[in-house]
């Protein structure tokens, strides 16, 4: 794989659902080793962009390249995606979920996953239905972060959990990714993730409104990225 290629490159990417435009002529590049915040209000196109990158949706127009690859089986093998939803079947045991990931993803590190689960205090014999909502989300995060992927797509990873769990999740994210990979985190809890971000992308109505380094906020005279976000997206 060519290491000089950006991890993600979107060119004039457009996605529409009938007459509704979810993303419009979006172009961006994410180089290696960056933690990028995909920020914007509800309905700004964050989840649509993530679904397009991981091949769950087909673009209406434009193109996506992940390490130079168009979305497909090869790109899916190097993208680790954490959706907002709980996708593991309720009857599936944690150990079975580990087996599943190990079977399908060659970059899955079972030892790392077991270590993270042990720190979380989750037994591998428990079925998903026996876990609380927060723990299910953590198990999914463990599975996703235990992969040695080139691009991690995390859709609202701290959306539905308490502040203490948010710290665990953010620590897990930062502690487990390799510096030659990149992470895109979609959220509107900007204050919580701000300290782990290198760059941010503001999305509004399917358009990239701003794409810069996190230091831009302070350089522009704002107290923080959260402050900039609140002023930019004030209703």
């Amino acid at each position, binding site marked *: 794989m060519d290491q000089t290629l950006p991890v993600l490159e979107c060119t004039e990417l457009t996605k529409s659902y009938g007459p509704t435009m979810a993303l419009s002529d979006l172009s961006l590049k994410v180089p290696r080793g960056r933690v990028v915040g995909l920020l914007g209000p509800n309905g700004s196109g964050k989840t649509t962009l993530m679904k397009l990158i991981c091949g769950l949706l087909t673009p209406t127009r434009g193109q996506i390249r992940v390490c130079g690859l168009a979305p497909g089986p090869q790109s899916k093998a190097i993208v680790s995606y954490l959706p907002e939803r709980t996708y*593991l079947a309720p009857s599936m045991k944690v150990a079975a979920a580990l087996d599943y990931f190990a*079977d399908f993803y060659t970059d899955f590190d079972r030892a790392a996953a077991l270590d993270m689960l042990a720190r979380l205090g989750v037994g591998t014999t428990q079925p998903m239905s026996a876990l609380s909502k927060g723990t299910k989300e953590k198990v999914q995060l463990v599975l996703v972060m235990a992969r040695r992927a080139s691009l991690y797509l995390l859709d609202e990873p701290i959306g539905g959990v308490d502040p203490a769990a948010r710290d665990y999740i953010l620590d897990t994210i930062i502690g487990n990714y390799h510096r030659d990979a990149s992470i895109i985190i979609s959220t509107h809890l900007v204050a919580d993730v701000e300290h782990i971000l290198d760059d941010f992308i503001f999305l509004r109505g399917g358009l990239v409104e701003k794409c810069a380094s996190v230091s831009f906020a302070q350089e522009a005279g704002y107290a923080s990225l959260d402050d900039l976000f609140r002023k930019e997206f004030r209703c």
Partner: protein
Amino acid sequence: MLKKLFRYDFKALCRVLVPLHLAAVGVGVLASLAGFAGYSLSELSHAFGDTIDQLVTLLEGLAALFIGLSMLLLFCATVTTFVVVIVRFYRNLFTDEGYLTLTLPVTAGQILTAKVLAGMLWMLIDAVVVLGCVGAVHAGAEGFTGDISLASSLPVWLLGFSTNGIASLGESDITMLVALRWWAQTVLQMLFTLLLAYVSFALGASLAKQHKVAAGVGLFIGIWWAYGMIVGAIDICFVLMASYASTGFAADTNVTDLVMGAMSATSVVIQIAAVCGCWALCTWLLKHRVNLA
């Protein structure tokens, strides 16, 4: 990857369908025993005379009722198998589980192939188990009349499962070729039914904004009906041609046989084309039209 996908799909189906089919076998065995017991009871009646006649009649009635119910339960097992296979397909691809399945490093074609193979294998297992049970129950029920002839009933039941097979039950000599034809047509019919259901539910999920399952069921019934009408119309044309051949100027039984053979071949060709069409459409839908909530 296809092997792994198939393994997971088959295992997931086994969790529900193995207990179901063990229960079906249990019902079949019990119903068969009930049939033989009913036969033995009538012998008892002959031995003891009128003193226990009423009791024997009651027990025979209960045995007959149990046999009837068991046939119904076996039919339900077949329907349940089909429903379980479709539920697995829908849940695994069009609900939240789809986020996992559809982001695996595999093609849409591999996902569909694995689901078709797992579904087909279970439908075939179901056919063998249920028809075996029906054969056993049938043999048991024949015990009532004292005419136990497994050789004449069971193989015909097993072989005559397909539509054409049932129509040909009157054939005096069932050759190996005829038996193979029946089973080949049965497998093709199963494949078509399964793929039609898959494509209906995939269409329902991609076209409907709400009530996607209901849309899938509606599409399945609608497409099935439309397909039946088209094939039926073509068959009628062939029957009219055969009728003309047998009564027209050139009345010739060879020509009639030829027309009926052409009708059968056309049905098979149409069904193969329908299977290919369903396969291509389903793959395309999985690749381009899935939009998970």
